[in-house]
């Protein structure tokens, strides 16, 4: 199976109205070429699941500026004024999720767990309307799994099988988002075309990767 596709083919996998997970932490470890191509195409009414909305000229922040999202699920939006403006003016719905809860909800979605039991957010607005589960007399918030139609991921290296490895602080959400999405697309700085990655070096196995896009050097 050839998983390597063009940027054009890749963005065609994202449909209007889709829920998309995008890897990255304030733009670090984000598939910038996929994002640029989506902005150019203008695929709208998307729901975003991402750690943050980065900056107006970086990462998913560019998609915010292009008004591609009807809803944003993130832990932090403070570095992108446009997200705050769209939220306060009611243009875009924003659901704030604690960062550790967000990654764990994504992992639960991908790994077949019924939810996440965490003390994070107890007694705050995050807990409103949510089920509390007692374990040995201690309260835990039940946070539900998250799924997406498409995951847009970044890796330092990927082989033709889709095996991913990383450099620096770029692992962040990229490690688990592929498991929680129907279709996952990895933009890698380097696509290994001859041979395969050393199986001891693989961080995310290729079974979580459906398509590969060559991102090239930064």
């Amino acid at each position, binding site marked *: 199976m050839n998983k390597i596709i063009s940027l054009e083919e890749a963005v065609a996998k994202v449909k209007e109205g889709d829920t998309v997970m995008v890897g990255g932490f304030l733009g670090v470890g984000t598939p910038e070429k996929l994002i640029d191509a989506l902005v150019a195409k203008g695929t709208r009414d998307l729901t975003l699941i991402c750690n943050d909305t980065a900056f107006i000229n970086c990462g998913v922040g560019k998609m915010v500026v292009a008004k591609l999202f009807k809803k944003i699920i993130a*832990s932090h939006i403070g570095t992108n004024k446009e997200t705050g403006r769209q939220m306060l003016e009611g243009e875009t719905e924003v659901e704030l999720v604690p*960062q*550790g809860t967000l990654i*764990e909800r994504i992992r639960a979605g991908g790994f077949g767990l019924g939810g996440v039991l965490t003390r994070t957010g107890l007694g705050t607005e995050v807990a409103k309307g949510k089920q509390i589960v007692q374990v040995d007399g201690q309260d835990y918030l039940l946070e539900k799994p998250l799924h997406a139609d498409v995951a847009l991921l970044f890796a330092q290296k990927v082989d033709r099988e889709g095996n991913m490895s990383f450099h620096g602080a770029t692992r962040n959400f990229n*490690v688990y988002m592929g498991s929680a999405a129907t279709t996952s697309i990895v933009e890698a700085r380097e696509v290994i075309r001859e041979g395969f990655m050393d199986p001891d070096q693989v961080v995310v196995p290729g079974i979580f990767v459906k398509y590969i896009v060559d991102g090239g050097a*930064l």
Partner: protein
Amino acid sequence: MMDKQAMQEFIARRVALEFKQGDLVNLGIGLPTLVANFVPAEKEVIFQSENGCIRLGPAPEPQNVDPCITNAGAVPASLLPGGAFIDSAMSFGIIRGGHVDVTVLGALQVAENGDIANYMIPGKMVPGMGGAMDLLSGAKKVIVAMEHTAKGAPKLMKSCDLPLTAIKAVDLIVTEMGVIEVTEVGFLLVERNPEYSIDEIRQNTGAELHISPNLIDMAL
């Protein structure tokens, strides 16, 4: 009176004294980040940042900047020898699982029972909680590093009126006026900056301020 920068450095310098040898520490963005500059060289403290770095080091020289190596504020950073890069699930496993010895965070308000508000002002500024809620629920010790007041308005309160980031989470508050423990009976001033009288500190505190019988000058 100190200027803003001197005040922030003063606070950061005092917070740095709280760390013990071998502590795993997570510093919030802003003032808390400064604390790293004041840890004595002989004390081995491991800085973790929630974006996936363990043994975060100082900012690199411009020619050594690697766009993939940043702190949790997306500022170029370095890793010290023995460091590791991890994913967000493990990063927050460390935080939620109680493996972080100390976290230092800023705050908008702290209540005398340890409640803290630091992630939004409704209708005005809604940056989001990022990793703060997890740090507050998971870290063994929570230190708030902040200016004592916001333009004269008390930030240490009977109860917070802003949305809470966590309940009963704060252990210690370090401001330019002093060091305040959050105890069963409320705020307890344990160290005082000699530049401020106890009355001055009380006037700038929005809840009862107990004075430790062992009150000392702020250690620096």
